[in-house]
C-alpha cells in the first residue's frame, strides 16, 4: 500500500506574525549586497538606457525602461495622445513591442492617425495601409475597449501583454477612464500603485495618460502639481511629462495669414509644442523639449524645419 503525501495541510503557525517579525531580515541589507549592481552600473558608464523618443535631441535626456511608469499629462487637445502615438511608433521601430489601450478612441481611429504619421502626409492610400499593417504585425497591439474599464480587467490585460505577447510598452489612455471619478482619490492612488507594481514585476514600461485641472487659460503651462485628482498619482510614477500646445503661436499665425502678411521669423521659430519633463526619477535631466508640428502628417518634429520623420525607419 502506498503512502499518500498531501500537497497542502492546514497550519496553525502564525505566518503573518512571522512575516512581520522577519521583515527587517529581508529589507535591511548591508550596502555590499548591491556591489555587483553598482559595478555593472559603473562599467556601463553614464550612458542612458531604455527606449528612445523619436527626436534625436531627447536621446541623452529621457528614456523609457522596463519596470517604470511615465505619466503623460496635459490639457485637453494639447496633443498628449498624438505625441504618445508617435512615440509608440518609435518604440515599436526600435524592436520594443507596444500595446495601446485607448478608452477614448476606437482602434481604427488610433490606426488612422498612426497611418498619417507613418505615411508622412494627409492622404495616405492603400499601399500605405498595407505597408503599415505588414510592419505592425508582431510589433503593435491594440486593446479594443471604449469607455470605462475596471482596473482588474486592465491588470489582466497588462499581465497577458507582458507574459504572452512579450510587450514592453503599454499605453493607457487615460487614467480617468479606469477609476470611478475625479474625487476617487483612494481609487486613483491604488490604481497607480498597482500599475507601478505590475510594471516592476513584469518589466514593462507603462505610459499613463492623464488630464490636468482647468487652469486660468491654456497659455499657462501646467506643472506636475496641476494633475487632476490626487497628488499621489505624480508622486508614485517614475517620470512625468507635460504636453503643452503653443496656442498663442497658432493664433498669431492665423491672424497674420488672415491679414495677408507673411509669418515673421520670430513667430516661426517658436515651438508648436513643449514636452516638459517635470520628474525623471532615474535620470538627471529635467527640462523642456521644443517640438514643431507638421499638420499633414500629424507628426511632431525636433526642429523648426518641420520635416516629418520616417517613423518605420526610426531606430
Amino acid at each position: 500500500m502506498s503512502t499518500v503525501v498531501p500537497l497542502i495541510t492546514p497550519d496553525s503557525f502564525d505566518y503573518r506574525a512571522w512575516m512581520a517579525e522577519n521583515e527587517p531580515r529581508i529589507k535591511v541589507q548591508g550596502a555590499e549586497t548591491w556591489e555587483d549592481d553598482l559595478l555593472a552600473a559603473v562599467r556601463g558608464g553614464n550612458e542612458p538606457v531604455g527606449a528612445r523618443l523619436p527626436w534625436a535631441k531627447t536621446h541623452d535626456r529621457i528614456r523609457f525602461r522596463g519596470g517604470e511608469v511615465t505619466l503623460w499629462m496635459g490639457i485637453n487637445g494639447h496633443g498628449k495622445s498624438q505625441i504618445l502615438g508617435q512615440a509608440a511608433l518609435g518604440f515599436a521601430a526600435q524592436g520594443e513591442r507596444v500595446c495601446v489601450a485607448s478608452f477614448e478612441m476606437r482602434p481604427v481611429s488610433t490606426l488612422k492617425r498612426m497611418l498619417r504619421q507613418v505615411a508622412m502626409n494627409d492622404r495616405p492610400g492603400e499601399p500605405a495601409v498595407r505597408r503599415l499593417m505588414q510592419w505592425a504585425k508582431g510589433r503593435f497591439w491594440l486593446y479594443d475597449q471604449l469607455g470605462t474599464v475596471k482596473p482588474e480587467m486592465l491588470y489582466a490585460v497588462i499581465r497577458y501583454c507582458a507574459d504572452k505577447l512579450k510587450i514592453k510598452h503599454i499605453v493607457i489612455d487615460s487614467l480617468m477612464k479606469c477609476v470611478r471619478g475625479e474625487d476617487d482619490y483612494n481609487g486613483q492612488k491604488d490604481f497607480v500603485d498597482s500599475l507601478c507594481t505590475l510594471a516592476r514585476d513584469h518589466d514593462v514600461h507603462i505610459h499613463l495618460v492623464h488630464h490636468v485641472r482647468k487652469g486660468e487659460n491654456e497659455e499657462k503651462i501646467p506643472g506636475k502639481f496641476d494633475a487632476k485628482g490626487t497628488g499621489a498619482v505624480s508622486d508614485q510614477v517614475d517620470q512625468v511629462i507635460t504636453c503643452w500646445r503653443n496656442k498663442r503661436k497658432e493664433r498669431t499665425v492665423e491672424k497674420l495669414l488672415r491679414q495677408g502678411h507673411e509669418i515673421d521669423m520670430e513667430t516661426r521659430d517658436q515651438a508648436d509644442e513643449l514636452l516638459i519633463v517635470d520628474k525623471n526619477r532615474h535620470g538627471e535631466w529635467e527640462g523642456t523639449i521644443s517640438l514643431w508640428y507638421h499638420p499633414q502628417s500629424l507628426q511632431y518634429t525636433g526642429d523648426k524645419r518641420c520635416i516629418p520623420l520616417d517613423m518605420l525607419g526610426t531606430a
Partner: protein
Amino acid sequence: MRGHETLSRLRMGGYKPAMVWLTALDGPCSRATFLDAENTLAWGNFPEIHVEPDDRIAALDFRPLVGTTVLLQGTDRDRLRAIFKHLRQFAPARVITSDGTFFHDTEAE
C-alpha cells in the same frame, strides 16, 4: 525569483505545503503558463520557487519557506551553498540539497 508570491499567499491563508522545490536556475525564470513557478500549485504539483542567476541571494525573501521541507537543487555548487546559507536564516524544517553530484540532508547533520 518566481513562485514565492503564490506560496506566501498560501501561507497567509493558513496552509503549509509538505515540500517545496527551490531551484537555482542557470537562466531566466520562465513565465510560460505551464513552466511558471507561480503556477505549479494551480496544476496540482508541489510549489516551486525559481531563483535566477541575476538574483541577489542576500535579498531573496524565503520567509514562505519557514517550517517546510525544501528540496534545493541547481548546477552551480557555489551558488547552492550561498542559497543554502541564506535559506537557513528562515528556519525551514529540513533542507535536502543536490546538484546531481552530491546530496546533503540537514536531517542527517
